[in-house]
């Protein structure tokens, strides 16, 4: 393997782009997915704000979005992305499909994390005469914090691999580099380096997430 053929400035730029795509889309994924997940949890059967119809509709929408393979979503989203931000290419162009692809996934994770919160604790809060919204924000979410961090970690890693996939439709980052140089120009060295970098990034995210979970766990 001849590393001298590699243009390192390209590599570092791509790494930076991958981090930006992952970070920005993680932010919007949480922004959309967290409320959606909370809504899924509280409207479910026998929960704080049981609303059978709302739950059924939300759950259906989430399932539909989750059943579209990400590669297809990337293509289907192109016109929408163009309307939203003017281009479907580059780092910006990859963000809308990334958010639409992972927000429903994250919402499901949030719903599951909230279900893990001891029912008795919520019931105790109800028995104290505390309003439902107050229970959700003052007790339910703080109790679920370690689980939430774990869910965000999983989502961040998923986003990173999706971001690499967006290279197929001209998104930026390490995936794009791997496809253009490693695949189309047969530069195996570039392929190896990008994969190695992705491995390192995933390890760092998982390790930091685990540390944070541990830090916030009071059980």
């Amino acid at each position, binding site marked *: 393997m001849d590393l001298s053929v590699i243009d390192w400035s390209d590599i570092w730029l791509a790494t930076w782009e991958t981090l930006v795509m992952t970070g920005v889309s993680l932010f919007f994924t949480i922004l959309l997915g967290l409320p959606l997940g909370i809504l899924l949890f509280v409207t479910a059967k026998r929960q704080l704000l049981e609303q059978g119809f709302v739950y059924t509709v939300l759950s259906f929408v989430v399932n539909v979005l989750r059943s579209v393979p990400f590669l297809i979503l990337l293509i289907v989203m192109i016109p929408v992305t163009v309307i939203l931000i003017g281009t479907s290419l580059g780092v910006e162009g990859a963000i809308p499909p990334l958010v639409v692809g992972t927000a429903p996934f994250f919402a499901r994770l949030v719903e599951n994390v909230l279900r893990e919160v*001891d029912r*008795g*604790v919520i*019931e*105790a*809060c*109800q*028995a*104290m*005469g*505390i*309003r439902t919204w*107050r*229970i959700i924000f*003052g*007790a339910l979410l*703080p*109790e679920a*914090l370690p689980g939430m961090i774990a869910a965000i970690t999983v989502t961040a890693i998923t986003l990173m691999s999706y971001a690499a996939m967006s290279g197929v439709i001209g998104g930026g980052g390490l995936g794009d580099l791997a496809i253009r140089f490693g695949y189309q120009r047969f530069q195996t060295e570039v392929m190896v380096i990008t994969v190695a970098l992705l491995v390192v990034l995933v390890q760092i995210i998982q390790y930091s997430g685990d540390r944070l979970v541990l830090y*916030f766990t*009071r*059980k």
Partner: protein
Amino acid sequence: MIRIENLRKTYRAADGREVEALTDIELEIGAGEVFGIIGRSGAGKSTLIRTLNLLERPSAGRVLIDGEDITHLDSEGLYALRRRVGMIFQHFNLLNAKTVADNIDWPLKATGHTNAAERAARVKELLALVGLAEQGHKYPSQLSGGQKQRVGIARALANRPQILLCDEATSALDPETTQSILRLLLDINRQLGLTIVLITHEMQVIRTICDRVAVIDGGRIVESGKVADVFLHPQHAVTRSMVAQSDALAAASFDPAHAYMKDKLRGTLVRLTYIGDVTYQPILSRIMAGAKVQVTILQGEVSSIKDVPFGQLLLELEGSEDDIREVFAALDRHQIHHEVLQ
């Protein structure tokens, strides 16, 4: 203070059948009273206590607290009611993410007490009340079961309720810790004049702190009254079997037909029960000193139920019918209840 009228609760089971969890419950609980509801698991006691703050909605009937039917409260009224009715739980249900002090502060903060200094003072007072003055900074996971329940009690008292509901509050604790929690509850009952309603499957809990007891079985109240009356003279089969299973009070449910010494009995088998001051007087010795009757004590207990001393003895009396009748008359004169078993 609390009146339950004609209460009924039905569930729809998973297979679509209607299951009746509570049937025709009638109860009256006085202000300042410690009222126990005892029953085996599945008897409906948990459902019953949960109707008192509407964690469980009755299917029919009324629940009156201070004369107000709580089943008709709107959501604002229900919030207000629940702040007047504290509750503690078998598994404590503390917030793991909050410190002990924050757990006690939470019901205050979340129900509109905005003055942080006042709240902090109240939390300090409550920590001292439950004997955890030094533990405020810890997290629940760092506490023992008994300490966790103390936090639960402090938290339940934060909003100065008039009623405290205890849902199997000592069932997850060892006997020693149970006793210390019961003592704390009794102190609170006396100091604050708090009405306590508790459910349990342990006779010992009822004996230690309750004034009155209701026995529940199959969703119905089968027997109720003062604790000493119910446990020393159990009428219903369920009460009898509960009494029989506890080591103490065994004489109350003694069945001569199944006793190991039934072949050896020659005389009359009598059960004596006495409650109150007579317990500590040498009445039995006085009566027997003058009687021409031989006495054998087969079984018995002298103890107290809450603060009421009592004695219960199983005796075999040997002598002529007239002599025995004379002993019975003397017992009656001293308000010692006797019951001929055989």
